[in-house]
């Protein structure tokens, strides 16, 4: 006890010596005392580096009076939740005689904790010997809690976004599942419809009935192929009419097994929105079907299919060179109706020119150019 009193006296004396060195009106001392920034000075030449001076702002911050703190090491501000690692960092900075700026949890006299932005720095004499330590303290509890609030808010926002993303993904997965299920059913149903028609066509003894059924089957199959191709491209919204034309024509010509019908193709991908897929495919189906029917006559024939874009429009041309045949009246009428309705549906223009054995049918149609960029 006596020893402690002695130390306090020594510390106070040292403080007074420090202040006495500055004359009364010394702007440094005046500033030190008056500043709103809490500040202290310690004396490392004394045992345990005690505080020898503190200003009013420090008293106000900590709740301790100058008399209570002078002579004590500053660690009395620390408490239960103070991070020992931070304390260790301060200790090694002091031992090394270097500056340090740290954030440390401290406690006021009344036990209330506060976040202290501590800056401390050695003061050296002319011989480079450390004679004092100087420190400033700043209560940044509010900033810290605002930071915590901000972090919490950010965390919440991130959580909300993650949650929304999860929900969306789940919804999308469900929707995709549903689309796939519906797609599967539609495909199976189309094939079932086709199968029923095929069975009936096989059963009938009447050639007229049979050809009528086959003509229905032909259109069902065109629509079926559209359905299949719409979904094999991952993008349900677009449909490549050139790809459709290729498959239709090669399958048709392949199946009739006639060496004297020659098919040539000049196709570039042209993507059309899904709603136009069926009418356009029906158009291609009618034109190619017609050309092949003409080629079935004795002389065979040449069939050339061209699909290409040309500034804002696209062109489907089916050209054939074969002996013109007199088509069956009903089937020709159905073909014309389908062509006309489909063309009107997609606002396409159909032009037919015939010269001798050569028939050229041009279908031109406006396409939105941004929609037919290839993948």
């Amino acid at each position, binding site marked *: 006890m006596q020893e402690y009193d002695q130390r306090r006296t020594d510390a106070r004396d040292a403080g007074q010596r420090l202040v006495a060195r500055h004359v009364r009106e010394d702007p440094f001392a005046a500033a030190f005392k008056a500043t709103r920034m809490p500040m202290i000075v310690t004396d490392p030449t004394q045992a345990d580096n005690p505080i020898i001076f503190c200003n009013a702002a420090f008293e106000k911050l900590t709740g301790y009076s100058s008399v209570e703190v002078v002579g004590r090491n500053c660690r009395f501000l620390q408490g239960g939740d103070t991070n020992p690692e931070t304390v260790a960092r301060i200790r090694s900075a002091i031992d090394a005689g270097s500056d340090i700026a740290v954030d440390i949890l401290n406690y006021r006299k009344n036990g209330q904790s506060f976040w202290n932005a501590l800056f401390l720095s050695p003061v050296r004499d002319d011989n480079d010997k450390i004679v004092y330590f100087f420190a400033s303290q700043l209560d940044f509890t509010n900033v810290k809690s605002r930071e915590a609030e901000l972090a919490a808010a950010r965390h919440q926002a991130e959580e909300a976004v993650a949650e929304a993303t999860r929900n969306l993904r789940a919804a999308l997965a469900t929707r995709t599942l549903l689309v796939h299920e519906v797609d599967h059913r539609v495909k199976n149903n189309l094939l079932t419809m086709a199968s029923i028609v095929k069975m009936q066509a096989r059963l009938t003894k009447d050639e007229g009935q049979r050809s009528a059924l086959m003509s229905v089957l032909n259109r069902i199959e065109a629509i079926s192929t559209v359905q299949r191709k719409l979904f*094999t491209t991952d993008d349900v919204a677009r449909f490549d009419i050139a790809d459709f034309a290729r498959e239709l024509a090669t399958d*048709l010509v392949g199946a009739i097994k006639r060496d004297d019908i020659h098919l040539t193709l000049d196709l570039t991908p042209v993507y059309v929105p899904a709603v136009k897929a069926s009418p356009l495919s029906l158009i291609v189906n009618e034109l190619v079907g017609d050309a092949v029917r003409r080629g079935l006559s004795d002389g065979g024939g040449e069939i050339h299919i061209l699909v290409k874009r040309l500034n804002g429009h696209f062109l489907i041309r089916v050209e054939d060179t074969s002996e013109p045949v007199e088509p069956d009246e009903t089937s020709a009428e159905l073909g014309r109706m389908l062509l006309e309705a489909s063309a009107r549906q997609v606002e396409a223009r159909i032009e037919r020119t015939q010269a001798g054995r050569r028939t050229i049918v041009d279908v031109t149609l406006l396409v939105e150019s941004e929609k037919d960029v290839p993948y």
Partner: protein
Amino acid sequence: MKVMIVEDEMLLAMELESEVEAAGHSVVGVAASSGQAADIVRDAPPEFAFVDINLQDGPTGINVGRMLAEKRIPYVFVSGNIKKLPDDFAGAIGAIEKPYTINGMANALAYISALVQGDDSMPPPASLVLAQDAPRPVRN
């Protein structure tokens, strides 16, 4: 060529059977499940098979395919969603996507029967996606 049809939609199976027979082949059996397929393979081994992926006992067509591949019986998948197939096509020659057309099936059948008889000179038809040409999903 002796053909097995593995398909759980009986109407489609019946129709396919007629098309196969119309092309001059014989059908040794129609299976609606993987178990039935195994029975047919044991009792009346086919030279070729059409295999749907979804059968009465679930998406077991792939297993049927692997069994056929093990027994060196060539086959193709016939399915509404060939994207469901594994990368190696489970050893199948290829796949015909539903809904196929009468021409598409006839051309595929002609190509396959030539192939099964050792003639690989024919160009594959548009209706048959060959295993080696199948678009592979991009893995990253």
